[in-house]
């Protein structure tokens, strides 16, 4: 147990002393996760709304595919993105391998089905009376979409939180696409994996505390928004 206690103490020291390696991993994590969340929300919310709101041929099959993608293994996404952005891949010319942009692309692919599927479920659960009410109050198409999304805002927040949790904690994509390069593409999760393998529990625990704190802060903020 001593090494755990020592780990906690070391963790506090690393954070207070602004250890460069630790803070670099924290910043990289925040940058890629924020970027991938913005992209997946930007694409996933409208896609989920369309999928949940409208009936069309093949909707059921699409939902099944999307639900399957909810449990997409991160290493599979990493492999797929790696194949596409490696120098021999179709997007090799953009030189995205071992960059934070490459990780963000992979994490967007990971988060998109989560945001879309949960948004679709939330929108499908909208009271049919809402549309009737909006139409009878003179709402146009744009008003109907925005008001419906606003009415289910707490459900959409849940979608965002779930996706963020998955993006923040994944290792596979960051490791395969980012390469775990110190001060460059090393994220909190890849750093924890590396430090633990090296037997440096304190560093691992420090980063673990940061990861949990970020998740906690995100949930506290959303809880505050819900109250408002």
């Amino acid at each position, binding site marked *: 147990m001593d090494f755990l206690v020592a780990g906690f103490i070391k963790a506090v020291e690393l954070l207070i002393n602004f250890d460069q390696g630790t803070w670099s991993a924290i910043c990289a994590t925040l940058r890629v996760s924020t970027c991938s969340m913005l992209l997946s929300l930007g694409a996933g919310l409208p896609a989920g709304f369309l999928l949940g709101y409208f009936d069309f041929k093949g909707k059921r099959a699409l939902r099944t595919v999307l639900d399957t993608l909810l449990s997409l293994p991160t290493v599979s996404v990493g492999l797929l993105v790696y194949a596409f952005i490696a120098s021999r891949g179709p997007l090799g010319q953009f030189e995205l391998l071992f960059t934070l942009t490459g990780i963000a692309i992979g994490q967007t692919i990971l988060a998109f089905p989560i945001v879309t599927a949960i948004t679709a479920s939330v929108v499908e659960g909208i*009271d049919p*009376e*809402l549309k*009737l*009410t909006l*139409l*009878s*109050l*003179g*709402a146009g198409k744009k008003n109907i979409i925005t008001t419906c999304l606003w009415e289910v805002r707490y459900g959409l927040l849940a979608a965002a939180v779930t996706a963020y949790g998955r993006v923040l904690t994944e290792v596979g994509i960051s490791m395969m696409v980012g390469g775990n390069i110190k001060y460059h593409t090393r994220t909190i999760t890849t750093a924890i994996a590396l430090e633990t393998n090296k037997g440096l529990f304190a560093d691992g625990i420090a980063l673990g505390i940061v990861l949990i704190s970020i998740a906690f802060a995100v949930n506290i903020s959303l809880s505050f928004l819900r109250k408002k």
Partner: protein
Amino acid sequence: MSEISYKLNHIQHYYGDKKVLDIDGLQICRGSITGLTGPNGSGKSTLLKIMAFALKPTHGQVWLNGRKEFVLSPRVRSKVTLLTQKPYLLKRSVFDNIAYGLKIRKDMGDIENRVKDALKSVGLAHGDFARRQWHELSGGEAQRVAMAARLVLQPEVLLLDEPVASVDTKSAEQIRKASLAARKNWGCTLIIASHDLPWLYECSDTRISIFQGQIFSTGTENIIPPPYDLSQKNHPVKWLGQNEKSEHIHLAPGKKNNKFAIIQKEKIHIRLEKEKANGWENQITGQITSMVMEKNAELIMTTIQAKDFFIDISLSPDQAENLKLLPGKKIILMFSSRDIEWR
């Protein structure tokens, strides 16, 4: 002649394979109050949704003010509004719920006072209610807020679908008052679907009955609803009551598919005792359930129940007085099967 507000042409609507509405033609005059009656599932709500341009009919056209209109047409969005039995309140404050329609029209002038007036018209005090959240209202208050959200728009047409069916007496009274004030204040055309027959008889200029998706009358006819016993080809009958096969109505021969038995109100007579050899095959025992003065007609709309069958007839005050008719009194309904038509 009054200007026509609505014109419905050959409206048919299906839910899946089931035809729920089949209306050849219907016209509503501007500024009038139309009462829509009919049992649950008869097509009232579907008709009102189509008239509110919230539902596209499977076939047929709806004309408003002489123009063929459709769902989401910008011309109707500011003119027609519908209040349902259980309206949805947006997850925001009472003020924001009422102001929503004005905000999406970008009609924000003097919004505070307009919302205040709308709340007042349904008997809710602005100070007490404007800042309340949607979940802090009782069922009756929520219905009144929903009504205020429609009234603040000063619509040209207000469609009310069972607006007082699930609210307390006070809220029901406020909603009734507010709807009539809308007609008085800005000439709003009202179309009201309700089981509250006394209210409809009292306030409506025209009454329409709807049964199994078809419009049958403008308040002058009674439908004798199916099922009909056609086992004796030339002597179809309608049994009254659920199980016992005792009292029945002799119907006219000539029943065809999908036709209903109809009798004009004026062909039905009331007596206090059965009579022999008077030429009326049908002498049905019934009980008066309600008597309401009809608007502008000086007649008393009398509803009589004979087992599970309800029938309306119009009586003059003299007739009612001579027979000493009162709600609860048992009477005999008399009519001839020859006066029943299949339509």
